[in-house]
């Protein structure tokens, strides 16, 4: 018998996210993972600045709200405080992680910091009302690229998973999406592995989750899911970009 319940690690409060936003799904996958691994009592989550700034209200484990982009540095402190007993994850959006917090992200990966990062990439700044993100697609219309992202003027999107996979320190990097059932199931598997890696002291894991923003993309939730399939995934191909564990076994 399959019982569909709310995970224990997700607080019984209404989420503030817009209709059709996939943050809710990703929160659920993280909470299910914490439940299944039985780590709620030792987990400390770090919330970012951005749409998921209030994530500290939604998870039932201990939570810390970080300054914009600094979550990996804060997580480093939380982890190093008691490496054997703290399971630490950050939950960050694309502006937070790939723009203002890029240095913290890269160096946490380079140090093989034994933390788990859930990186939600929806190609836009959601909370401030839809500005161009470091991951906005070429030609994408946003409030601060009203004529479409002109790559001659403001350059190209940052492919975080590809970039971090070049670092010797990064342990496990995978890009997933949550636009259909199959992808959600894969996303869950990746997130669970990223937490398991930390429990097993395998070092830095980052799961990039290609996500939606119907409100600021100016689309219905259904159309946004289609846009992920047609525009986002071709630019941000899904898959495992780095798995040191598997690589070393293969050798």
């Amino acid at each position, binding site marked *: 018998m399959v019982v569909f319940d709310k995970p224990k690690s997700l607080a019984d409060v209404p989420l503030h996210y817009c209709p059709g936003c996939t943050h809710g799904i990703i929160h659920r996958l993280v909470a299910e993972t914490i439940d299944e691994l039985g780590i709620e009592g030792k987990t400390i989550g770090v919330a970012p600045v951005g749409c998921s*700034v209030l994530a*500290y209200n939604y998870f039932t484990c201990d939570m*810390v709200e*970080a300054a914009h982009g600094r979550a990996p*540095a804060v997580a480093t402190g939380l982890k190093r405080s008691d490496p054997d007993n*703290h399971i630490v994850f950050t939950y960050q959006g694309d502006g937070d992680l790939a723009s203002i917090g890029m240095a913290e992200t890269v160096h946490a990966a380079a140090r093989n910091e034994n933390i788990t990062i859930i990186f939600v990439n929806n190609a836009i700044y959601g909370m401030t009302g839809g500005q161009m993100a470091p991951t906005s697609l070429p030609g994408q219309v946003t409030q601060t690229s009203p004529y479409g992202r002109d790559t001659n003027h403001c350059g190209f999107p940052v492919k975080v998973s590809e970039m971090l996979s070049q670092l010797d320190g990064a342990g496990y990097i995978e890009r997933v999406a949550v636009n259909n059932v199959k992808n959600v199931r894969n996303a869950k598997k990746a997130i669970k592995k990223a937490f398991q890696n930390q429990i097993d002291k395998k070092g830095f894991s980052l799961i990039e989750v290609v996500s939606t923003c119907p409100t600021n993309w100016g689309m219905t939730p259904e159309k946004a899911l289609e846009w992920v399939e047609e525009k986002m995934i071709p630019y941000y191909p899904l898959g495992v970009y780095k798995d040191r564990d598997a690589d070393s076994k293969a050798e």
Partner: protein
Amino acid sequence: MSEKVLMKGNEAIAEAAILAGCRHYFGYPITPQTEIAAYMAKKMPKIGGCFLQAESEVAAINMVYGVAGTGKRVMTSSSSPGISLKAEGLSYLAGSDLPSLVVNVQRGGPGLGGIQPSQSDYFQATKGGGHGDFKMIVLAPSSVQEMADLTIKGFDLAEKYRMTAMILADGTMGQMMEPVTLEAPSVNEYDKSWAVTGTKCDRKKNIINSLSLVPEELEKLNFARYERYKAIEENEVMYEEYMMEDAEICIAAFGIAARVAKNAINAARKEGIKAGLIRPITLWPFPNEVFKKAADKVESFISVELSMGQMIEDIRLASECKKPVYLCNRVGGMIPSPEMVLESIKAHYKGGTK
């Protein structure tokens, strides 16, 4: 270790921090304080502590924020330009009511400035140091011994009041060697029920947070924080008076400037000028009362500073502008000589108030 050892000021800070139970240090290299990081790098791995060189000052202060959230003693150190980078983190530490110890071994500014001693971060340290309404406890050592003692004191005050304590030293204090006695202090236990260490599934979750979107609630938090600050102003003021009993002209100076001032005062006394010194040890809370009282006795004040005149404003406020306050200063890494301070005393001394 209770015998006297010869140490650099920076090393004294590092050793004192370890004695005070600090086992986490995060920093980024910058002159003239890098000896602190070097000392920690050598010592921490041997005592089960954590030294980590951060990718930036910004990251270092946020690593401090992380450890502080777990209720453990943690510190970072830097020098002026690096402290500016830490300003964001200092504000978040204040907003989240987290204890931490931050050392600023000041150098000349603004901008990249120089690497020689300065006191020109006084405003930054005492008037907030970041966005929003907040204070830090600011301790100004004037000897290598005090570098150590105030570090120990700083950890205690930070935990007692759940805020940042800053050691505001300067390049001279950091680099000079003096004999120092170091002893492990008895560490006071404070409530840490707010810390995030994992709920162990036996308590409700804790949240370390400075976000408060409801204005009425954010206002309450600010008022409550300033109530705590008021208690600090009442209970934690520290200063030294030197030859103030019969003083007719009062020198005000902290850190290295106070040592220079003492020499000048001794010389002035030999020439029959009744000069004295008030040396604030806590720059915040500022020793207002002692200056207020002095204003009724002395004919004027001279603020000796390695800045363009920053503490002088607090002296004017504390003395309620009852007497003139003059400035005697060098900047850019220069230090006033005792002769220069003596000249200033002579220039402003009117021959006594009686």
